[in-house]
């Protein structure tokens, strides 16, 4: 009848198993899947991220230079980050914070010229990623 007693005694000596979030937070694990961010100056507005996205949360308009991401539709799979040829998309390690209204992220970049220029080199601190 007292089968759980040893476990209970151990737990009394070990302390609580929970942390007092949000006063105490845990360091995220490296490469955990969090928010998407786009360095719009590097973005070539090719639209490949929008085409690969399984949740259809990205909109790219090359003519006007607008890049829109809906963090409430996004499933944070990271496929867009892997696909981006300009290395402008990155995934943070912390997730989207709770919000009181549904906002999308709208960035304004250079409208795409016909013919395009040379693709910028990846920044020196870009993480090594698997290419599709």
């Amino acid at each position, binding site marked *: 009848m007292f089968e759980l007693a040893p476990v209970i005694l151990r737990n009394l000596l070990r302390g609580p198993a929970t942390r007092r979030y949000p006063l105490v937070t845990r360091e995220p694990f490296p490469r955990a899947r969090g928010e998407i961010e786009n360095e719009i100056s590097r973005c070539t507005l090719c*639209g490949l991220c*929008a*085409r690969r996205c399984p949740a*259809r949360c990205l*909109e*790219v308009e090359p*003519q006007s230079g607008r890049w829109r991401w809906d963090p409430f539709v996004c499933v944070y799979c990271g496929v867009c980050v892997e696909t981006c040829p300009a290395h402008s998309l990155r995934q943070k390690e912390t997730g989207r914070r709770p919000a009181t209204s549904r906002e999308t992220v709208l960035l304004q970049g250079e409208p795409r010229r016909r013919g395009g220029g040379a693709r910028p080199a990846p920044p020196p601190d870009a993480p090594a990623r698997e290419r599709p």
Partner: protein
Amino acid sequence: MQEATRAITLESLLAEVARLKAEGWRFVTLTASELDAERLELLYHFDRELRLQHLRAAVAKTAEVPSISPVFFAAALVENEVQDLFGLRFTGLLLDFRGRLYLEEESPMPPFCRRGREAEAPRGGGGSEAPGGESCATR
């Protein structure tokens, strides 16, 4: 998969299934898929000792298919699902929800049949090669 599949007709369905049960096969599931505007394809899957066997039958969408739930009671649930999603009628179901297992009255019927739907969007949306993609327009 092809080597383990046999084509049968609706008339021989119950006899084939009863024979498989007598030989010790377990009913796994029934798959329905659309062949064209008038026909569906029914695939019955069976298992014995980790090997699979399949029976294939092409039926008209308006046909009445004999239910195998008197032989395998487990088939009643999946035949109800096919009734709901493809609009195919089964006769002799031991447990019949008459098209209300998943769907409500106002659901578009039948949901999984592509051809024959009114105002069908042409199949050519997302994933097109034009820059910008369709994800701008249809969100």
